[in-house]
């Protein structure tokens, strides 16, 4: 079974983004980066499927040079090799640019199954997996909570809204977007980190005709619509004051 896992490297969740001077992107020079969390679940699912069915797991990412660090992390967790479509412009690219870059590098590999997270923590399009599937001309299913590989097909549990689920069977090859929480993540072992150093990261140039279909006109801190009463002081004082206000002003506790 030849499995691809598409990952994105994103700024860490606790990083407070600041807007750059022309207000079209963030000042990410001072950011630290990590593997996009939903993609980490996709990677884990790929590794589990390989353990069960054999084959290989290839991690694929489209982005600037720093992305190699996330690919190395995925290799340390157990992926066999990596493909890196390297281009600085992809940082701000939309799902069409990123999926186009990935598709060009992945097409000849003839993967049986392509997994990716359902959305990214940075731009949060929630589109790339399905755009990739349509670009590659293969079937897709989204927001997946369970993957059962069968002969030439995959039966998946899709999460619907409001606590509902549904099983769907689709033919291979297919792209699945994986929901966070589908499994318990493993972390890289020292042995895995050492082994990763010898694994291949193949660099690929992006196709010339990559184009985003949307443009950021301006980026800004959201305007506050609600007046928030901030309660200061020591923890004890703040707790007392909060309880008093919830009782006497908001009247929501007795």
């Amino acid at each position: 079974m030849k499995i691809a896992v598409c990952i994105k490297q994103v700024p860490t969740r606790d990083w407070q983004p600041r807007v750059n001077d022309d207000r079209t992107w963030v000042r990410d020079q001072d950011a630290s980066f990590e593997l996009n969390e939903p993609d980490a679940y996709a990677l884990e699912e790929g590794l589990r499927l390989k353990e069960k069915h054999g084959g290989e797991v290839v991690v694929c990412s489209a982005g600037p040079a720093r992305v190699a660090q996330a690919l190395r992390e995925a290799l340390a967790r157990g992926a066999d090799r990596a493909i890196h479509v390297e281009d600085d412009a992809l940082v701000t690219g939309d799902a069409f640019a990123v999926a186009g870059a990935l598709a060009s590098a992945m097409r000849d590999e003839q993967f049986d199954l392509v997994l990716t997270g359902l959305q990214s923590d940075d731009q949060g399009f929630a589109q790339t997996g399905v755009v990739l599937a349509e670009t590659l001309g293969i079937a897709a299913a989204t927001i997946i909570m369970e993957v059962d590989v069968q002969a030439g097909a995959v039966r998946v549990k899709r999460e619907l809204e409001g606590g509902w689920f549904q099983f769907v069977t689709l033919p291979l090859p297919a792209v699945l977007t994986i929901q966070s929480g589908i499994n318990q993540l493993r972390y890289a072992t020292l042995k895995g980190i050492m082994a990763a150093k010898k694994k291949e990261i193949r660099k690929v140039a992006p196709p010339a005709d990559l184009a985003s279909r949307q443009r950021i006109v301006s980026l800004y801190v959201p305007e506050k619509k609600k007046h928030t009463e901030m309660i200061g002081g020591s923890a004890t004082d703040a707790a007392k004051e909060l309880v008093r206000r919830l009782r006497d002003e908001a009247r929501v506790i007795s």
Partner: protein
Amino acid sequence: MILVIAEQQNGTLNRTSLETLAAAQQTGAEVKVAVLGADVAALAATLAAARVAEVLGVQGAALDPYTLDGYVGVLAKVVQAERPDHVFLPHTYQTRDFAPALAVKLGMALVTDCVSTRWQDGQLIVARPMFQGRLYADVAPIGPALVTFQIGAVRADSLVDGSAPAPIRALVVVFDAGAIRQKPEAPFREAKQAVDLTQAERIVAVGRGIKEQDKIEMARQLATAIGAELGASRPICDAGWLPMDRQVGSSGQTVAPKLYLALGISGAIQHLVGMKGARTIVAINKDPEAPIFEIADFGIVGDLFEVVPAMIKELQG
């Protein structure tokens, strides 16, 4: 013209579809609305009460049950025939499933999770959150776009009725069911829900900031002290620290209690859409820039492991 795709399940329109229709009206453009399914005559009649130019009742064997390929196949034909400037859709799980493929098929842009729109020199500008809602972006789609609207972006009750029912056009779109690759089974719910948070008057909810499973007991004590149910953001339920029926947010329950007390919840957009209807929202978080403070009525920037025990003591004192 803006074409709105309304979403229905078992003959009921979902509320976000009405919000999306209201958002389309508010652009000032001519609006048409399409509803899809095996039998949509009744829903088309309901939608015709709104001030729209036309209602399209789109029927076809490929539409029921829902599949990604079936919807893309049918909607591609509808959009190509109607030639709207833009297509507005609710940002639901179903839309998230098919809209990216539809955009590829039609060569259109797709701008997701929109909270508002405006026109600038004839160009549609769409506001959407980025970086987990810490920033917002005004985005200009290049050419005709599919735009998906976040739950609650526009109030459904701002939908304007027409002076007379809008004309309804029934469309039967033929799409080869054999070309549908997804074979769906009937939707189901997991084991019976032990708690119904939608009925709770007060909710104490925990997020990543609780750090350890053992610390949930502290939140439980606070909940008991104020007569609240315990809720959680997605990562807590993913980790198995609380069962899924305690999850608040777009993939869990949408709640509107009198009091929502958020402990260590940063306020990712997927969580906010599930609780921003609460009457009084309290946020306790160590990060002063956490988006949860944007919608809180009362906020404490501090260590919840100090503040919460102090609250319990005060409540019991």
